[in-house]
């Protein structure tokens, strides 16, 4: 199994080009949770790096064992994944592990000037922890992400529009990014829905290409979510749960329709963007700490 690689020429002549530097915009640091089947921690770290924020990927057991401390961070991220294989309900088992071992530390974290983001499996974990909607800071399970109506995992690009103006949505007209979940069907009681609406906690909704409401119709609303809800915040606005994955489409060339858009732009004499529309979401988070 000996293969020499010395003396090889660069195959493309391009790889030597340095990737663009990403200046650090804040001293605040993010903690990105991992372990037990969470799987999107690396691209989540990458997207925050590009948005200008440093982060550590920390295995939940290292937090439980006290090798890392939550209070060293200002942004807590539960990334996407399949923690515990979605057994006993997506996000439920990981939420139990957090609640049974880290609850006091987490409550103290929430009382500081911090933000919490849960994407996909992370949103399912937040919902099971009661971190959203957290009315009156009562951490109860008032919402649920049920199995998709179609009963199988669905992976496709969806269009999102902001449903309220808050720190998370500033400057965003639309997002266009993948979903990949088996349980993302947003559900809550009619009373909870009223509260979510009146308190402007519904943050992103699934919509059609032209930003008109999806009205529950597949595939624009991919899972049957009530009121096309894709993401909500906590009552205090500091915690956001979001089913779709903007971190999986950071570049223009990650978007489903980029080859078509490229032809349109090229022929109109427009310059092609490097970043996708989704980066603004992460820049908003980083800006909060600037």
């Amino acid at each position, binding site marked *: 199994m000996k293969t020499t*690689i010395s003396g090889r020429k660069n195959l493309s002549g391009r790889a030597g080009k340095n990737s663009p530097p990403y200046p650090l915009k804040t001293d605040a640091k993010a903690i990105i949770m991992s372990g037990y089947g969470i799987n999107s921690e690396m691209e989540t770290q990458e997207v925050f790096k590009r948005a200008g924020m440093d982060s550590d990927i920390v295995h939940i057991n290292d937090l439980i064992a006290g090798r890392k401390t939550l209070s060293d961070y200002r942004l807590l991220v539960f990334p996407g994944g399949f923690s515990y294989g979605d057994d006993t*309900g997506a996000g439920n088992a990981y939420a139990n592990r957090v609640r049974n071992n880290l609850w006091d530390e987490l409550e103290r974290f929430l009382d500081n000037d911090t933000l919490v983001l849960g994407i996909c499996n992370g949103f399912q974990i937040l919902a099971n922890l009661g971190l959203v909607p957290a009315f009156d800071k009562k951490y109860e399970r008032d919402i649920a992400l049920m199995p998709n109506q179609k009963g199988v995992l669905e*992976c496709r690009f969806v269009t999102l529009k902001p449903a309220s103006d808050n720190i998370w949505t500033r400057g965003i007209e639309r997002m266009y990014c993948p979903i990949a979940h088996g349980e993302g069907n947003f559900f809550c009681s009619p009373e909870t829905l009223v509260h979510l609406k009146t308190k402007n906690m519904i943050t992103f909704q699934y919509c059609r290409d032209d930003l008109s409401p999806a009205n529950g119709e597949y595939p624009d609303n991919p899972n049957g979510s009530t009121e096309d809800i894709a993401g909500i915040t906590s009552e205090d606005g500091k915690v956001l749960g979001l089913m779709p994955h903007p971190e999986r489409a950071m570049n223009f060339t990650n978007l489903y329709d980029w080859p078509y858009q490229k032809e349109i732009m090229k022929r109109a004499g427009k310059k092609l963007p490097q970043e996708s529309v989704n980066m603004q979401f992460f820049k908003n988070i980083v800006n909060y700490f600037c």
Partner: protein
Amino acid sequence: MTSFIHRIEVHFKQDPRLKTRTAKIRSLGIPIRELCLIDVYTIATSSRDFTNDELDRIGAQLISPLIQEYTIDTATEADFDYAIEVGFLPGVTDNVGTTAKQTIEDYFSIRFKDGDAVYSSHLFFICGKLPEDALQKLTTILANPLVNRVQIRTYEEYGKKGMDPLVPDVHLHELPASEAVDLDLDDNVLTRLGKEGIPDTLTGQRRGPLALDLRQLHTIRDYFSKKGRKPTDVELESLAQTWSEHCKHTIFASAMDDDVPNGLYKTFIQGATNKIRREKGDKDICVSVFTDNSGAIHFDDTYIVTHKVETHNSPSALDPFGGALTGIVGVNRDTIGFGLGAKPCLNYYGYCVGDPDSDPVLYRGKNKTNPILSPRQILDGVVRGVGVGGNCSGIPTPQGWCYFHDRYTGKPLVFAGTVGVMPIRHKDRNLFEKQANPGDLIVMAGGRVGKDGIHGATFSSEALDPASPVTAVQIGDPITQKKLSDVIIKEARDLGLYRSITDNGAGGISCSVAEMAKECNGCHVFLDQVPLKYPGMAPWEIWISESQERMTLAIPKEKLDDFMDLVQRRDVEATVIGKFTDSGRCVVEFHGDVVMDVELDFLHDGLPKKHLKTTYTQKKYPEPGTPCPPRLDQTVLSMLQRKNICSKEFISTQYDHTVQGGHILGPVQGKGRVQATASLTKVVLDSEKGVGLSQGIFPLYSEIDPYLMAAAAIDTAIRGLIACGISLDNIALLDNFCWCSSDEPERLGQLKLAAKGCYDFATAFGTPYISGKDSMFNDFSGFDADNAPVRISVPPTLLISSLGIHDDVAKAVSIDAKIEGDVVYVIGETFPELGGSEYFSFLGSIGNTVPKLDFKKVISRYRRLTAAIAKEIVASAYPVNHGGLAMALAKVAIAGRIGMEIAIPSGFRPDYYLFSESLGRFVVTVSQDNKKDFEKIMGFDAIQMGTIRGGALRITGQKNIVDLPVEELEIAYKSPFLRY
């Protein structure tokens, strides 16, 4: 024994899946009104009981209270006609049960004792009176008798008490340590021993096939008689594993006829790669080929990418879900086990199954015993298995395919592949190299060992027959493997905590340890140290068990504490089971007794050589007699609905293809969402480069001309990548031969021709093979309903998978037609080559003229197209394949949801022109502005055939041939699998 049993039943207040679940069952022809699902957890403990209050708290942990409710030791109340409970048989992996157990342990801060467990099961309530046979059929859809136990009750029988709690715990009687096996036997008795296995002294039953033939058994007998003793059962089972067709690939390794003395593999596969690497010199892309668990090529100056494609055919025939799941997580370990561990970054699949609309009645046993699963059940199961494996592991699955033919009814083929990425170096180590040293500890990490998968390696080397052991079925546990993979790839590797690593696949530790022992020339294993799922396993079972999710590592003594500390913090089990030596021997102990002591040379190279003879007869098939219809509208629609041509998007969308953030060109493309033949993904997010995957497979050509079949597979696999902009210089290939009846000289004759084709065309293209695998006996032997013997052999199947590096993904080209007014070109010549084509199949014929390949012309054409794409003057490109030009044009139009006006040349039968499968062709669209530049680069190959215009596909020859709205094409293309 279990003393305390409690049952928690969980149901949705309003189940969101109820409608789709019910509709799916109804679409399979079972007239139910509703199918409700209850999740059941059975807690079985002996060391402690739980109080009612504790059980209540456990129930609360297992549900989401807003949407679910639970009952404890009380039957769920509901209105229904039948209740069917489906649980697991003893010893079958139960992931949900394990998670529930861990949740309970965590909540109460306790540890379950050995033998205590939580078992999960599904309780279905069926509303609607069903006839007996429909109820039977529903049961076979909900449960597989090889892995599931089933309990059925009517509403009356269910009453107030509900279902009986069932505890599928494993009971084994302690077996004798190890025993000598007498080989001084009559040849007939010896042959039977090889075929059916060692007779068990306690039960008298055979232990399952060794798949050793008489010559091999004689060689083993002679070896041990020189040592003056009889072999132990451990030694015999171990040799059977190591010498199996599955591990040693004897058919590819043996001398063949007079002209291939070094065997097919060395001559045609490795021989091709060696020649290509020599000729490419500085431009050689290979890093590690054939020697490791995967093959590897350069990605750039910092990274390498690996690829490996495996098959898991026999297990998938018996348990499609478990077989396919084990297949994909198994090939993931070929990535983790490459060098010092590559990160799995792309999964890949391929399924050859029978027509899912057919319902063949076939049995493995006489008198209607052991029925085969229907193609629909097999398809549903394998699709789900690979999905669960990839999705739960966080590995995107952007690329795959399905191929349907009745000859896959008896035995499906399930291909599973994984691409990995790793830095070439870390600190001062080359990560693609590994070296176990004498004195290093042998550490097994990951899951525990049970009886699952025993005789898996030997079993897949034998044709499926009634004696197939059910222990060959295994269900993977992707989360256990994910934890293992994360700690190795993302932590231990770069901490330098081990010197070598390999996966446990076929043959379990017997193969992995013996394989690694080659690096240092010896090993000494203590089988009693191996952690078991349940007590009572015999040493030979522990040694060859194929329990999943395990890696074997070589750890220097001074690093052991650090390694153990790390894996413990990651909740991953690891155990020292022995040490590597330089004794030249493989020594195995069990509770102080030496149960195996064999020279490594004999273990690895003692296998007697074979000399295979082949014959080949060119067959002649009748040509179709149908004249060309004056209009081809209906034919085009029917062809689009053929299962090998139409959309299988339901698979692409249930496989996460965006995780890891590198999606560039996905499995479906364009506004009209057409499945592409190639995908492109960034595996290093900061790089401009991407990894392309494609493939070629033409099983129907094999019976006409196996040599040209190989040409078609190779050209198509390469052309898929060329179409998205990958240069021929950056492409490597993988071969997977899935043959049938490989003990017949005619089949071997076809094999030899196909292998020769692999050599000739790969060397012509300069695309090296970096890894491959073969599976030689894909035959089904059984009976029909009247007890008449039936044998179904798969068509000789060669899958060529391609792996390519795209230099700049921002210049990649998708398949969809873009903008009105663009020019449509057909690049490459069309000949009347329809033998084995989809069109001839549609006409009910096979024919004789399979496509030829003029590789000199084709190579120059591919290089010019690559240049055009690099100049960004190509708006779309689609490689013409199954179904020919008409299908390619239709798919490009559907993908762009825009019409085309096409004129085809005269002097050619229009249907033959439109459906010919001639190789080397593309449909390319180019904007009017770039027309001149494009034609300059492509030269005489740029044949303008039409323009993108309107909302219909219009094809004219001497008169109108096709005029179909694109919407109608899209409906036809998507209709066959719409309800899946």
